[in-house]
Each structure stands twice: as C-alpha cells, then as structure tokens.
C-alpha cells in the first residue's frame, strides 16, 4: 500500500509533536479544539465525580452494616443515597464512555481529523463543568434528599433541601449531552474517510450513533420536566401536586420518558466497547456484525416505548401495565442477540487474556445476570413484589456497574497505550480486574436475595433479619473499592514509568491503531483510505505485520 509508510512511521530520530506535547500552557488546554485534549479533560473531571460518588457509596454501605441508623441519621442517609445517584448517573455514567472514549476515538476510528463541530465539543465540556460546579455547590450548601428520581409532590412541595440548585445543575448538564450527541451524529455522517462505508464502521461507532440518537431525543424531555418542577416549586403553578390541581403520576411519566432511554445511554456505549474488546483479543471478525449493529439501533428505538415499566405499581391503568410489560420483553431480544454473538465470536478464535479481555469476559457474565434479572422485573406480576426493593438496586447495579463501568475500565486499559503512549502494568491490571469482578458480585448478589425477602430500598434502618446479607454486601463493597482504586494508582504511575507502548501494541487492524501513539493533533499525517472491512484480520487488511512486530520487539529491547 502506498500510504503505509506514512501512516506507520519508522523510528524517527527526534520525537514528533503529538497532541499531548503540542502546546503545554494552560491556555492551550482550556481553549483547545482538539477532541483528544477535550477527552482528557473529561477523563479527569469524570474520574473526580466517580470518586465522589464512590465515597457516598462507601458511606451507604457502612451505614447499612447495622440495622439501626447509627452511623448516619436518616436525614443524612437520604441525602447520601440521593447524591450518590445524582453524581453517578448524571455526572459519571452518562458522560463516561461517550465523552471520554467516544470523544477520543470516534474521529480516529473513522479516519477524521476531529469531530465535525470542534468548538461545540469544547462548549459541551464547559457546560458539563458549569452544571457540575453548580451541583457541587448545592451539595456543599446542604444537598438534596429527594432521591435521584425527584418524585413529586415530595420534590415540589415537601422537601426543604436544595432541589432547585441541583435541578438547575442537571438541567444545564443535559445540554452537554445533547451537544455531544449532535456532534457525534454529524461527525459519523459527514467525516468518514474515503472507503469507510457504514458497514466498515467499528461497532463502537454504531453503538455511539445509537446512544447519540437517545441523547438528542430524550434529554430535552428531562429538561422540560425539571422546568415544570421548578415552576411548581417556585411559582406554585399546579402541575404535579394535587393540592394545587396537579397530577403526581404525570411527573413519573415525564421523568421516565427520559430516564428509561437514559438507561440505554448508560449501557449502549459499554456494549460498543465490548464488541471491540472481544473481537480484538480473539483476533477474529466479530460474529454477526450487522445483527450487533442493528440491535443497538433497535434498543435505542424500543427504549423509548417502555418507560411505563417503572410505574407498574404507581396507579397507572393495568392495561397500560400489560402493554409496557410486553414491550419490555421485546427489548430483551436485541440484548440477548448481542450476548450470543459475542460468545460466538470466541469460537475458533486465538484468545489472549490481557487485562482488557478479562474485563470483557467479566462483562459477559455480569451483563448476563443483569439482563436476566431484567426479565424478572419486566414480568409484571412478579415485579409488583420486587419493585422498590433491593432486587431493583441489585439489578440496575449489575447493568450499570457490571455493564457500563466494567466496559469503561476495559476500554480505558485497552486504549491506554493509544491515549498516553505508555503501557500500564499488566500484572496489576489483571489483579485489579479480578478484584473488581469478585468484589462486585459479593456486593450486589446478596441484594437480589434481600430484595426477594422484601427489604425496601432507600431505608436507613432495616429489620434485623436482613443484617447478615447486608454484611456480605458491605464486605464485598470494600473489595470492590480496593479493585477500583488500584487502576488510579498504576495507571497514573505508568504515565511516567510505563514502558513505551508503540503505535500498535496489540497488532490490530482498526484505524485508530494505524497512527502513532499518542496520535498527532491532526490524527493522521496522511488522509487514510480504507480498503478493508471492520475487524479484518486477514492478509488484505493492509497491515505489515512483520514490520509492526519488528517495531514492538525494538521497543521491548530498548
């Protein structure tokens, strides 16, 4: 291939500028239009929010070690679980994979110089910062105790906490999601390199396309809901509170019309990461590419039709309940298709167990349990008993943490050499991946049993017979905590002491591996022309395997 020499540079005598070294002033970061630098700034902020949310989680688990509300009074406990939910959902899970990995990788994967709207990308980071800062300010002032769901009329009339400030923070932050989603859609439509057809896109890009659809269609609804909540709380206009003529069920319809699709914002990108990892570490084309791609779109579309399954016991008509239950069961099918295809990809592969692959295999197990327990909750007669108990808590942590967070960690490890140019410690990586898996299961599996026994969620104190399982859960959480802190340490350590990674450390055909590590500001020195299929490990993929192996060996001995 003509362009090959340019794309895979030889060992140049003096280091070229990459996106990290191209400008070192604070101004060059804060006013950058480079999607990669913006992704790094997201990475830092999102990680801080994750740590804060994690500290709230630790407080929750410590309080629940004993049946009485002793460590935290119930008023404090209510704020702690509310703020855990708000930080983790709006400021960690929703931006995690899209704003960090999506931002960094979509242009690289499709062969573009940047996102289509670089200034808008920077704007969405600033909006995220402003929304986050406002929310943090409100938490410092005294916080909020409504639950992350803000159910009316508690939130509009009864709560004496900083509902308005936190609501405004979430309202502002929503525009960050909308702009990011818009940017991705425009970029994927208009910025693909020559030869990069839709069906040559990595599934990571397909998953982000589906996610972006949900972001731009769903997020405005939660903005409207918060606005209506504010009108009622401040101006006493009767919308949700029946004492002033409103309808509390209306709030739930509006809220879940966004927040159910938001669940898919929190899992589809993770599914995209897993498709990359399973294929890369089996060194095989993904099984059933089109089925995985379209199942993402199907999930995004059906995701808008099932919000009522959060309201089976809320007082909505039982016929509505039956329809929502039916549609919920239909959504299970595209998720099942993905799991089967991932498993089939392993068949006759050449599987290696690097840290990202351990996360990917862990994801398969955890997402499977998360998805199957979703069937329990979609089955309406059973969910009358299970809803609002710890069964729900366990289920959505299996999907959100066992799914999205595990995928996020796998993705961070997998692309770490590309992002930073350094290799992390494979030994510590494997240890922490296993600790996370074991700790996670120990934390949340007992909660399924607690839930079926009837322990309600959001309880600061609970009957004594539930204590044993709560102790298991808290013990598991401490293992999980250690597993999550370790990557912070060894990944930071690798920035300075890590081995040089080389441009293509895993020897993979994806476009992002065909530029240098870290990539230059303009991503590719020469516009790439794509002549290979997605996940093409055959000889036609245009890679000079021997040359890459030689370079990697050189790095190893250097």
């Amino acid at each position, binding site marked *: 291939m003509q362009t090959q020499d340019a794309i895979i540079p030889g060992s140049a005598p003096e280091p070229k500028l990459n996106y990290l070294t191209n400008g070192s002033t604070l101004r060059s970061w804060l006013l950058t239009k480079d999607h990669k630098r913006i992704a790094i700034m997201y990475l830092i902020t999102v990680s801080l929010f994750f740590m804060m949310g994690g500290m709230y989680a630790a407080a929750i688990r410590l309080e629940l070690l004993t049946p009485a509300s002793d460590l935290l009074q119930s008023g404090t406990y209510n704020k702690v679980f509310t703020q855990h939910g708000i930080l983790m959902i709006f400021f960690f899970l929703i931006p995690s994979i899209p704003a960090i990995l999506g931002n960094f990788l979509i242009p690289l994967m499709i062969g573009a110089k940047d996102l289509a709207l670089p200034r808008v990308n920077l704007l969405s980071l600033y909006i995220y910062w402003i929304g986050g800062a406002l929310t943090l300010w409100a938490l410092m002032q005294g916080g909020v105790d409504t639950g992350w769901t803000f159910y009316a009329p508690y939130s509009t009339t009864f709560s004496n906490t900083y509902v308005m400030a936190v609501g405004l923070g979430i309202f502002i932050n929503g525009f960050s999601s909308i702009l990011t989603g818009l940017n991705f859609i425009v970029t994927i439509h208009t910025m693909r390199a020559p030869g990069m057809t839709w069906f040559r896109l990595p599934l990571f890009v397909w998953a982000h396309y589906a996610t972006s659809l949900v972001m731009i269609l769903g997020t405005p609804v939660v903005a409207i809901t918060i606005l209506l909540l504010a009108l009622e709380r401040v101006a006493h206009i009767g919308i949700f*509170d029946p*004492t002033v003529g409103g309808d509390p069920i209306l709030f739930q319809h509006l809220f879940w019309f966004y927040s159910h699709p938001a669940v898919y914002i929190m899992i589809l990108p993770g599914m995209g990461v897993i498709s990359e990892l399973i294929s890369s570490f089996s060194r095989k084309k993904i099984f059933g590419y089109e089925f995985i791609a379209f199942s993402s779109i199907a999930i995004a579309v059906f995701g808008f039709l099932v919000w009522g399954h959060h309201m089976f016991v809320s007082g909505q008509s039982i016929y509505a309940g039956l329809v929502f239950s039916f549609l919920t069961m239909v959504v*299970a099918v595209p998720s099942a298709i993905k799991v089967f295809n991932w498993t*089939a990809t392993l068949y006759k592969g*050449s599987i290696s167990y690097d840290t990202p692959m351990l996360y990917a295999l862990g994801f*398969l197990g955890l997402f499977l349990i998360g998805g199957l327990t979703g069937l329990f909750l979609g089955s309406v007669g*059973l969910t009358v008993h299970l809803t609002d108990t710890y069964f729900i808590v366990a289920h959505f942590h299996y999907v959100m943490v066992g799914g999205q967070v595990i995928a996020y960690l796998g993705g961070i490890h997998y692309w770490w050499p590309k992002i930073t140019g350094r290799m992390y410690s494979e030994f510590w990586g494997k240890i922490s991946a296993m600790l996370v898996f074991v700790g996670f299961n120990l934390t949340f599996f007992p909660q399924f049993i607690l839930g079926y026994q009837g322990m309600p969620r959001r*309880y600061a104190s609970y009957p004594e017979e539930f204590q044993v399982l709560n102790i298991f859960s808290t013990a598991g959480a401490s293992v999980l905590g250690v597993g999550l802190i370790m990557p912070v340490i060894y990944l930071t350590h690798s920035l300075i002491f890590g081995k040089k990674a080389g441009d293509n450390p895993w020897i993979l055909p994806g476009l992002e591996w065909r530029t240098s590590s870290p990539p230059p500001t303009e991503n590719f020195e020469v516009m790439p022309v794509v002549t290979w299929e997605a996940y093409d490990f055959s000889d036609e993929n245009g890679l000079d395997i021997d040359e890459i192996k030689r370079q990697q060996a050189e790095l190893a001995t250097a």
Partner: protein
Amino acid sequence: MQNTSWVPLFPDQASTFAWQVDALYFYLIAISVFFTVGIVAAVFFFAIKYRAKEKYETPDEIHGSMVLETVWSIIPFIISMTIFLGGAIIYFQQYTSPPEGMEIYVVGKQWMWKIQHETGQREINELHIPVGTKIKLTMTTEDVIHDFFVPAFRTKADVVPGRYTYMWFEATEVGKFHLFCAEYCGLNHSGMGGWVYVMSKDDFEQWLSGNTAGQTPVEAGKDLFQNKLGCASCHAGGPQQRGAKLEGLFNSDVKLVGGQTVKADEQYIRNSILNPASQVVEGFQPIMPTFKGQVTEEQLNALVAYIKSLSPGAAGSSPGGAAPGAPAMTNTNAAAANKPAPAKPAAKPAANSNK
C-alpha cells in the same frame, strides 16, 4: 408467629398470591440458571480451547450465520413471551379487586399508616385482619406518595395523593408480618412501617369487640353531612333542592352538563366534593363551593362511605356477570368500589385463586 417457608432465604408465604408469585420466580430462576450456565460454560470452553497458541496468530475467518441468528432471536422471544404471560395473569389478579370482601380504609401520612375498619376501629401502623377473608384496601395519602407493601403477601401498591388506589389480598397463614412503606417519602421513610397481624376468625372477632369502636365511617360521614359541613342543606332530598340527589347515586351513571356520562364511583364522589365545578350534573347550577382544604382525607373517606350507604342496592348490580371485576388501579373503574352487601349476584372474578 412467623412461619418458615420451605426454602430458607425466602419470605413467608402468607397470601393466596404468594405461591403463584413464587412459582413464577422459580421459573425465572430456572431460565436464568440455564442461560447463565450455558453461556458461561461456552465462554470458558472457548477461552481455554482456543487460547492463543502463539501471540498474534490469525485464525480463520467466520462471518456469521443467518441460521444461528434466527434461532437465537426466536427462542428468547418465545421464552420472554411465556414470562410475560405468567406475569400478566398474576398481575391481573393482584390488581383486580374481588366483588366482595372486608373493606378497610388506609391513609398514609409522613410517616405513619392510619387505618380504619368498616366497624369503626382505628389503628396506626398495625393492621389486624382475619385469615381466609378477602381484604380490600381503599388507600390515599395526606401528603406525598407512599406505598403499602406486605412482602409475605407478595403485593404492594402506591398510595397517591389526590386519588384513591386499591389493593386486595387474602391471608392464608395466621401470624405477624412486616408492613413497609416502599415508596421513598422523606425523612423517616424507613420508619414508616409496622405489622400486619393475621388472626383466626374467632380471635379477630374478639379483637374487634375488645377494641373500643368509635363511630363507623358511615356514622362519621352522616354526622359530617348533616351537622358539621352542612351538606344536607342542599343535598337533603327535598323537592326544591339545589344539589343533586344522592340516594341511589353510587355506581349509577350520571349525565353531566355537556352531555358526558360518568359512573358515580368513589373517585367521582371524592372529586365532586373537592372540585364541584369540574363535573356538574345535568340540570344543576355550578354553585357548590369547594371543600378542598376543609376536609381531611379521613373525613373524605367517611363522607364517601356515607354516600355509598345511601345506595344499598348498588353493590351487587355493578358490572354484571360478563366482566370479571374491572381493574382496580385506575380511578375511573368502579369495581373496587363495590360494597360488601349480603346478596351477591356478581360473578366471581375468573382469575381469583382461592385455595
């Protein structure tokens, strides 16, 4: 006291729903174990059998299989439909009140449950009921949303301000069972609970007679209607009354100004007291003042009970044999409002599961 069910780690089975919900639960566990074991075994098998023999070796390409994709789309769909049907059947029973049963009024309030029996007894955070009797709860709240949850009965329902919600159950075991509020309701949410005492019928009778009864809801409502709120001045049934006649009203069809016809169920009566102008009966002027803010939820319950008592025949003559009791969770459905009357011509709900 608390009977232990046959599997440890499971809650007591103490209502007619319990065994059905548990059966569905075990069905789902079986499906989950089947798929989890299958997939995990496949992952382990592949991961070991096809581990990389040599770093970066490239195996043969496999593109996919239309047959497999079809199979693993259709089979999960069929299985999920069986789960849907099982859940739907149980749900329909849980939320369809039987025509007859013992009616109990429940008012939620931050952070307590206030309960009143038909016979006048009041309880707070405790509910005494006889075993083997259908119990129908008519519930509302004075402030925020709560949720009445008895794990041993495998049912719950939200209690929503501004409207009535209904639930029912039939206890099968004598004992003491947890009552929880399951919908987050503020500061002392985890303290908003108590116990349901299921008693033998004899013990229950004794409890009733030992517990000094105040006024029954009907008596209290009559008192409010005639003396305290002055409803009788317009609605007392004289020839030139300004307000609509209430005798025989309950469960009848009412023609409204504008031509619409509604069924006079509990929700309608409640709404007519709180928002009289919203549903004006044909032939009357919208002159009735609102009683919003002047009556408590418990007084409203009493008024509704009194107005229902003015229509003694209404209970049995409701929906008829065709429909097995309309859904109880919706406001507009009247089935749950059926009064316990001696004569019982209405058909039993087909879905009812008496042991």
